């Protein structure tokens, strides 16, 4: 077994928490039942890892096997990644082609390898008509970096593909072209959601545009950074009573009503920030709430103009 492959497998296994280790190894299905039974998973992690590497060597693990393990690890920890969503659109007058998974994998791999000599492409299919694609990028002169791969999850029965955010941004246009070439469709629209979207393809979100709008407004209002810790905000109102109902006793009252409204929370500003994305309030929120960090105060007196 190649030294780089051994190192790669070792680092991957080290990432896996001990309580997930047997599950992931079983899903990997590379080491046999008999081999796994010889491992004492109660030892110190380093010893477990050493033993597992030894078994992988016995079985002559290849780069492909290692990449597959990496995919499985990522599938278990998909929520730790940030995913961008791509939507493929059909050109005018195009028919829906029947999707062939084998052909897709072959042509995808070929296109990438033709463009970039040094690239590792691996696939893993899942039950929901989805294929996980792992791409490790190299350059003309360097071997692929296995520690900064990009993941693409493509649901073949939908026009959507999810791509993990990668530090190697320069490869995004190439990926786009690869999908383009395969699908012979018009260029991809990038839609960055950054939301925790359920990846089950049987669930379809109708209001993605609205969700994005809310996300964008929330980000514009509150920014990306954590909000200052604040536990309450108080509004003293001295305003005339306003009502849609006719004939309400209070509506005729000339003097302003006095009332005190207090919002309290272990983390008020974070709570306000999450209101619109949670669907509890509409975006944009009232400026009376969002002005708190700007105005640097949380006591307000509100009177009629």
């Amino acid at each position, binding site marked *: 077994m190649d030294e780089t492959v051994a190192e790669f497998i070792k680092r991957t296994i080290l990432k896996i928490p001990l309580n997930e280790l047997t599950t992931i190894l079983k899903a990997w299905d590379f080491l046999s039942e008999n081999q796994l039974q010889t491992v004492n998973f109660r030892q110190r992690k380093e010893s477990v890892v050493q033993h597992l590497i030894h078994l992988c060597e016995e079985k002559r693990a290849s780069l492909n096997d290692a990449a597959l393990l990496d995919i499985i690890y990522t599938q278990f920890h998909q929520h730790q990644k940030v995913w961008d969503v791509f939507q493929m659109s059909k050109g005018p007058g195009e028919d829906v082609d029947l999707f062939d998974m084998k052909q897709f994998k072959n042509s995808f791999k070929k296109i990438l390898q033709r463009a970039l000599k040094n690239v590792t492409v691996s696939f893993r299919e899942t039950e929901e008509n989805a294929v996980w694609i792992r791409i490790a990028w190299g350059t003309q002169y360097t071997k692929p970096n296995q520690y900064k791969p990009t993941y693409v999850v493509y649901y073949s029965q939908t026009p959507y593909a999810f791509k993990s955010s990668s530090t190697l941004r320069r490869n995004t246009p190439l990926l786009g072209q690869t999908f383009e070439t395969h699908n012979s469709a018009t260029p991809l629209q990038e839609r960055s959601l950054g939301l925790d979207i359920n990846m089950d393809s049987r669930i379809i979100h*109708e209001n993605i545009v609205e969700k994005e709008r809310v996300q964008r407004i929330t980000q514009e209002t509150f920014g990306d950074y954590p909000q200052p810790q604040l536990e309450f905000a108080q509004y003293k109102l001295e305003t005339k009573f306003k009502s849609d109902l006719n004939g309400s006793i209070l509506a005729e009252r000339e003097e302003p009503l006095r009332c005190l409204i207090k919002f309290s929370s272990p983390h008020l500003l974070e709570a306000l920030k999450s209101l619109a994305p949670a669907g509890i309030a509409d975006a944009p929120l009232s400026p009376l709430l969002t002005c708190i960090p700007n105005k640097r105060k949380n006591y307000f007196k509100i009177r009629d103009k």
Partner: protein
Amino acid sequence: MSVLRPLDKLPSLNTATILLVGTEDALLQQLADSMLKEDCASELKVHLAKSLPLPSSVNRPRIDLIVFVVNLHSKYSLQNTEESLRHVDASFFLGKVEGFRATMAQRLVRMLQICAGHVPGVSALNLLSLLRSSEGPSLEDL
């Protein structure tokens, strides 16, 4: 104004599509997950929407059942449902369901199968007329 009307599209093979409408996305997702966990012979598709009307640019399959999810603590949620109802033809209406999410998910899946025509002997039209007549079963009995 675009209005959703029942039974105006052809059904898709062995697929039952439900539309969940509500302001709180997390609740819709949870209900969707519960429904998809149910044992069901038909292929389920769950569409989630915040409100109606749905974006018209998308090609979507026939919707067999619409469920409005209302948070009774939220005036915003109720208002949103009222406004969305204007876009649904009155003949769509079947009734309301309350209860724990797990049992609700089960009931909804069964209702959905009937509405999609996957239950032999009971059709969506049957269901509409059964529930209208006062001697018929209530939604809870289904």
